[in-house]
């Protein structure tokens, strides 16, 4: 293991997820000698990419598994909607435009796509799904990297990226909790994710409520390298106090629950807080466009908890939950089982039911079936909860990623107050904050990672292979 560490290396890649692998493969194909330092053990390799499932892709006509077309402006408008304008338009459009050429590149490097999964028809035009999901993509890339002669070291925690002025010289790394070793390279690509699994950091940024959050992704994104670079004067982007959280099943594991902990029932539900009060329009838009805001909505409620209630009519309209719902024959009994005040819950649901109006219900598109005279309103899919059995799901915020990252140029070079570093590039969640200032767009994280990973790998290899490093004569 230790012998694997000493190169010489042209490009050292810190991290082992999608962006890191795209960088490593691109650099290796350019002829560079590449080392990947992945913090996780092999079964958990791949960062949050392990849990992903698709890639949002611009295309001017049918492309691979993608139907129709998805033009740059529509894509950018979708991004504006979720970020409420908190995005760097130039970088965002660069990512969007580059995505079209990424898909064939991904296929050429072992990634297999499939038509959108059942229950995700709404994404069949915009998102290409990975056959087997993100871990299959990660496996394909590791195999490709291995075939290209890339060296991979697992359980390699980089603790410090050593800079001399505006130039990277070496990393300090501990393998399998062993002694710290210095590994030097001509270039470095940083792609080791955000800090969402460091709960103390989350609590400092968000407040003590963050200790009640569940972490949906890898336990290995602790932000060590991100913190190290910020401490060395690199410029940051993204809101340091915010994380992207979605509402997930409150019974999910503390870490790594991934996709199965999602609950897609909100559009068909009445959602209340622990005081049995509704707090937001559950039917604002189709779920893929709105699921991303519910984590923050629930996080703002007392005790960071919510309850989604449905009746038998809606039970088969959404993906099954990983844990069985709480079930009861009356709303009052359901409240009791969920630990809510039965009388208050019955009153809230009663008021909701009275505000529902007849009309045509359509589960997959906005049907305009809205409440009348209710605050907050439910603007679509508003049907009374009247058909037993009734089902209830506890909701808690599940953190997917953090927004704080490193500022980069369009070449993926890491920025300091005095300009870009000469041989340090960054990609993936570590830099996504420029483009995703808030909210989330399904499959866009993988797009950012793929586009910037490839750019970073290309730049790092070009630097290492062409730069005549001037030897300092002492």
């Amino acid at each position, binding site marked *: 293991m230790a012998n694997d560490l000493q190169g010489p290396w042209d490009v050292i890649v810190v991290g082992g997820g999608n962006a890191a692998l795209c960088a490593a493969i691109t650099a290796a194909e350019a002829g560079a000698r590449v080392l990947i330092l992945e913090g996780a053990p092999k*079964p*958990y390799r791949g960062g949050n990419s*392990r*849990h992903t*499932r698709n890639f949002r892709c611009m295309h001017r006509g049918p492309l691979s598994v993608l139907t129709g077309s998805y033009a740059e402006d529509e894509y950018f408008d979708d991004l504006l909607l979720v970020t409420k304008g908190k995005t760097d338009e130039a970088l965002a459009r660069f990512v969007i435009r580059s995505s079209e050429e990424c898909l064939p590149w991904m296929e050429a490097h072992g990634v*297999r796509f*499939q*038509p959108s*999964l*059942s*229950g*995700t*028809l*709404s994404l069949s035009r915009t998102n290409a799904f*990975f*056959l*087997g*999901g*993100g*871990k*299959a993509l990660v*496996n394909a890339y590791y*195999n490709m990297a291995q075939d290209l002669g890339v060296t991979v070291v697992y359980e390699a925690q980089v603790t410090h990226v050593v800079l001399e002025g505006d130039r990277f010289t070496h990393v300090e790394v501990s393998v399998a909790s062993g002694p710290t070793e210095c590994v030097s390279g001509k270039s470095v690509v940083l792609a080791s994710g955000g800090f969402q699994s460091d709960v103390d950091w989350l609590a400092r940024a968000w407040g003590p409520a963050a200790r009640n959050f569940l972490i949906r992704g890898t336990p290995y994104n602790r932000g060590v390298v991100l913190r190290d670079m910020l401490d060395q004067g690199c410029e940051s982007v993204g809101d340091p106090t915010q994380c992207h959280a979605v509402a997930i099943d409150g019974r999910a*594991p503390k870490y*790594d629950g*991934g*996709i*199965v902990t*999602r609950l*897609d029932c909100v559009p068909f539900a009445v959602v209340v807080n622990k005081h049995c009060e509704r707090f937001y329009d559950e039917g604002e838009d189709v779920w893929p466009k709105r699921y991303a805001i519910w984590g923050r909505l629930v996080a703002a409620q007392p005790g960071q908890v919510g309850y989604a209630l449905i009746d038998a009519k809606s*039970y*088969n*309209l*959404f*993906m*099954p*939950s*990983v*844990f*069985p719902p709480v079930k009861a024959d009356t709303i009052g009994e359901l409240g009791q089982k969920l630990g809510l005040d039965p009388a208050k819950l019955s009153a809230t649901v009663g008021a909701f039911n009275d505000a529902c109006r007849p009309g045509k219900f359509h*589960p*997959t598109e906005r049907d305009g079936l809205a409440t009348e005279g209710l605050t907050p309103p439910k603007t679509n899919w508003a049907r009374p909860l009247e058909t037993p059995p009734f089902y209830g799901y506890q909701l808690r915020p599940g953190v997917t990623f953090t927004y704080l990252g490193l500022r980069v140029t369009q070449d993926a070079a890491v920025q300091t107050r005095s300009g870009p570093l000469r041989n340090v590039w960054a990609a993936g969640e570590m830099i996504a904050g420029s483009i995703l200032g808030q909210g989330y767009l399904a499959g866009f994280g993988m797009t950012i990672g793929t586009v910037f990973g490839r750019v970073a790998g290309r730049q790092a290899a070009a630097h290492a292979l062409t730069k005549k490093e001037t030897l300092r004569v002492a």
Partner: protein
Amino acid sequence: MSLDLSAHLTATAEARRQIEICNACRYCEGFCAVFPAMTREKAFADGDLTHLANLCHNCRGCYYSCQYTEPHEFALNIPAALAEVRQESWERLVGPAAFSRAFHENGVAMAGAMVLGIAALFGLIATLPEGEGAGFYAFMSHNAMVALFLPAFLLPLAAVGVGVGRYWREVGAGRATLGDLTAALLAAGRMKNLSGGQGQGCNFEREDRYSDARRHCHQAVMWGFLLCFAATSTATLMHYLLAWPAPYPPLSPPKLLGVPGGVLMVAGALGLVWLKTRADRALGAARVWGGEMAFILLLAFVAASGLALYAVSGTAAVPVLLALHLGSVLTLFLLLPYTKMVHGFFRLAALVAEEAMKRRTPVSSGGE
């Protein structure tokens, strides 16, 4: 509670725990028929799990793509969980159970049975009066062979038939049409469920890298076996309808079918043995690994001894090889309900059942 991780869960309860997690994920939908089939349900009865288990071809694509395999607390291992249920279902549905367990689990028992079968043939050949016919019929008459092999073939088939009938009722397959059967036969003929969904094959001997080696070896054995079976059937028809008894010349239907069939069977079986030694045992029903291995070797021995018997035609070695070949064939037939051989019948039944269920209940699309 679906996530109780106690070690004493039965195979079915453990499979249910795992399938409920899969059904909330569905990333593996594109690999095979199992994942689309599970989307028909939100709650899984025992019969549903029996069906999914027999539909699973153990391609292992889902295991290597799964973000919930150990050390994750969900500890998913669908190929193994379904292999356990599948194995348990054969042992439960095909009687008598004591035979099932003895041979499925135990390669040594199978080898012992083979020794007995071969010894019985040596005994028969030694004690029966000399046959009237030419070739091997000089050592064992056609009538003696029929008297021995007809019941040894039909009785085990009947036992399997009863078991498959029980399976059909347990999974609630309902009525199947000719179209269902055709679609199932096409899937089996191409081993569609070992293709990984896109023709890249499965994850077997090279961990998470895809390979078609197992699919190709399996098809060599399957088609080889069917060719040998066709050779014997053709010969029987020629014997009775054309009054044309064995031995047959090299360019006759029995030889043209049987020789390539035997070669395919030997090559395919040896390939499967080699692949099995390289694959991770923990991704199948580990307790029957030895029995499965012995069964593949038995198949290889049946085919190789048949080819050898043909090769030594007219020499003094014929009686010895005749006993070896017929003895191993006898063992294969008699053990058919109690070895891996039974998987073919159940797998085909599961494929037909799936076509029928799919036709009646198009797979749900989670509300879309």
